[in-house]
């Protein structure tokens, strides 16, 4: 979680300094979902992400250097600088598809789950989407088909209460995403998405069932997007969170408090982890800055496989 937090805060700075260009969405505040889910997956489990993809990529094992080089448009980036922030894909680590169109990734995960079934393997597909994706037809089509064919896919909703710039109440009368899928006879659960232990436990149960032939399942993680929809968003649609409220919500501080209370985390460890993360991120910044831009000819070379 520290790696994701520090990385994204640094990306925010680099965006303002115009070293990272284009549209950037940060997941600061939502790290517990990516960490609680991806830490339990294997490289051959396919993960599908969305426009807010950095945390999922890092949690699934992508190298900080290659992600940052991608965000800085370099040839050494994960996708050779062609994809950028919203399209991070790292096949080696099973990050199969990050799509910039809300909901566009959900049926892709069904395809990975179908392939797992046909191959007779125990790979599980996971797709991350926000609460804004749930009101789209693509979501209903995908849930119906996944349930009908009993595909091993876990649908993970990061419900941060805002779909882009408007609250959930402006989108639907249904408060809980887990209630939306009730008629489809699939296992579903809503958890506190800022409690990494709760995310880990609930997802772990679903994962074990999916590995054993079950599925699909829906895990709704209630979380908070600390920053705007995109970097530079003036956020005129909501009040800033008071510092003490954020202290209560911050998934990293919560885990640290819990560790201290339960006696398994000594006082120096959080600072050390943060410092290690900062050093790794600075190394990644150095790597990316020194990497060349891709050759312009790549533009046409990649059109067809």
């Amino acid at each position, binding site marked *: 979680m520290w790696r994701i937090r520090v990385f994204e805060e640094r990306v925010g700075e680099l965006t303002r300094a115009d070293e990272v260009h284009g549209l950037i969405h940060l997941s600061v505040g939502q790290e517990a979902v990516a960490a609680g889910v991806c830490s339990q997956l294997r490289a051959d489990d396919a993960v599908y992400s969305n426009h807010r993809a950095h945390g999922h990529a890092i949690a699934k094992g992508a190298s900080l250097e290659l992600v940052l080089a991608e965000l800085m448009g370099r040839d050494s980036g994960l996708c050779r600088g062609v994809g950028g922030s919203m399209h991070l894909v790292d*096949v080696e680590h099973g990050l199969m598809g990050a799509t910039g169109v809300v909901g566009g990734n959900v049926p892709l995960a069904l395809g990975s789950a179908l*392939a797992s079934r*046909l191959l007779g393997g125990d790979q599980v597909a996971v797709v991350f989407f926000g609460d804004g994706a749930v009101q789209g037809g693509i979501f209903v*089509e995908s849930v119906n088909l996944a349930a009908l064919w009993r595909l091993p896919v876990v649908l993970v909703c990061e419900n941060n209460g805002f779909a882009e710039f408007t609250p959930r109440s402006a989108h639907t009368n249904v408060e809980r995403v887990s209630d939306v899928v009730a008629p489809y006879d699939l296992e579903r659960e809503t958890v506190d998405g800022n409690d990494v232990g709760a995310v880990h436990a609930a997802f772990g149960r679903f994962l074990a069932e999916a590995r054993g032939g079950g599925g699909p399942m829906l895990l709704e993680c209630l979380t908070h997007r600390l920053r705007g929809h995109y970097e530079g968003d003036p956020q005129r649609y909501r009040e800033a969170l008071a510092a003490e409220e954020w202290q209560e919500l911050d998934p990293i501080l919560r885990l640290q408090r819990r560790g201290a209370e339960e006696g398994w985390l000594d006082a120096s460890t959080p600072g050390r982890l943060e410092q290690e993360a900062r050093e790794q991120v600075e190394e990644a910044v150095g790597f990316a800055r020194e990497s060349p831009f891709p050759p312009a000819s790549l533009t046409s070379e990649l059109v067809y496989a």
Partner: protein
Amino acid sequence: MARELPYIAAIGEAVHQEMERDESVLYFGQNLATNDEDPFLKAFGSDRVRVTPISETAEIGMAVGAAFAGYRPVVQLYMAEFMLVAMDQVVNEAPRFHYMTGGQVKVPIVLQAGYGFTAGWAGQHTGSIYGMFLGVPGLKVAVPATPADAKGLMTASIRDDNPVVFFHHYLLTLEHGDVPEGEHVVPLGEAAIVREGGDVTIVAIGWMLGKALAAAEQLAGEGVQAEVIDPRTLAPLDTATILQSVEKTGRLVVVDQSTRHGSAAAVIAAEVASDGFSSLKAPVQLVTSLDATVPYSEPMEAYLLPDEAKIVDAVQAAVGTTVAA
């Protein structure tokens, strides 16, 4: 050995043979295999032949995800217009991934889509909408006009590592023609010179090929020898073959069942105007549908569509004009 087969059977034979040859080929679609006697279901089983709900977006998206894992799904969409409800997947997911991932993944899927059913099917099931896919880099577009090409292009489409929209014409469904038995591959991106001639080049797409050939026969009786080219695929477009023909004839007529603006005909005309201008002795003639939705009433439908007489008129206009060099 070739034997006569209807166009639609030639397509089915290609899918069947490829499914036999390669276990990674899957077949999805609504109402596919409606009973246990279905030949695909009997041969390949319900794991590979999958009946889907009416959920084009999920069907196509799922095909893309399965393609990432090495499968080669063919999605039977029946009507080309049904793709329109899934345009995000067709335009903004499937053809983007190989590119946006820096080449990490391939998306070998085929979207099988019937079009042009101008036989009283009215406004929403009759469009010749391939033109709107020409501005989508990464997507290939096949438009077979004969049973043999239908088989050969479907085989090539399934074997291709890119997403291919395979447009088959509904009014050609039962047209018979010689089709090679066994393996038959027509490479994507190669036009066919179907009739040779030195006076004018006619490029005719899909169903229009038969009409262009009939017009060419009539014109031959008047002393005009038309060269007739079937592009067979619109993306990639075999511009070289068209330009070479125009270099010889100096005149070009493009026949396309689709509406004129934004059409494949307009793209072909632009390519020749851009790269073959010095060969042209007359303005390029476009014979297309009117820029209107296909109407239901039969005389109105005929009024809207290109036909043999309109092609003959266009050729005569092209041949009858010579611009100063």
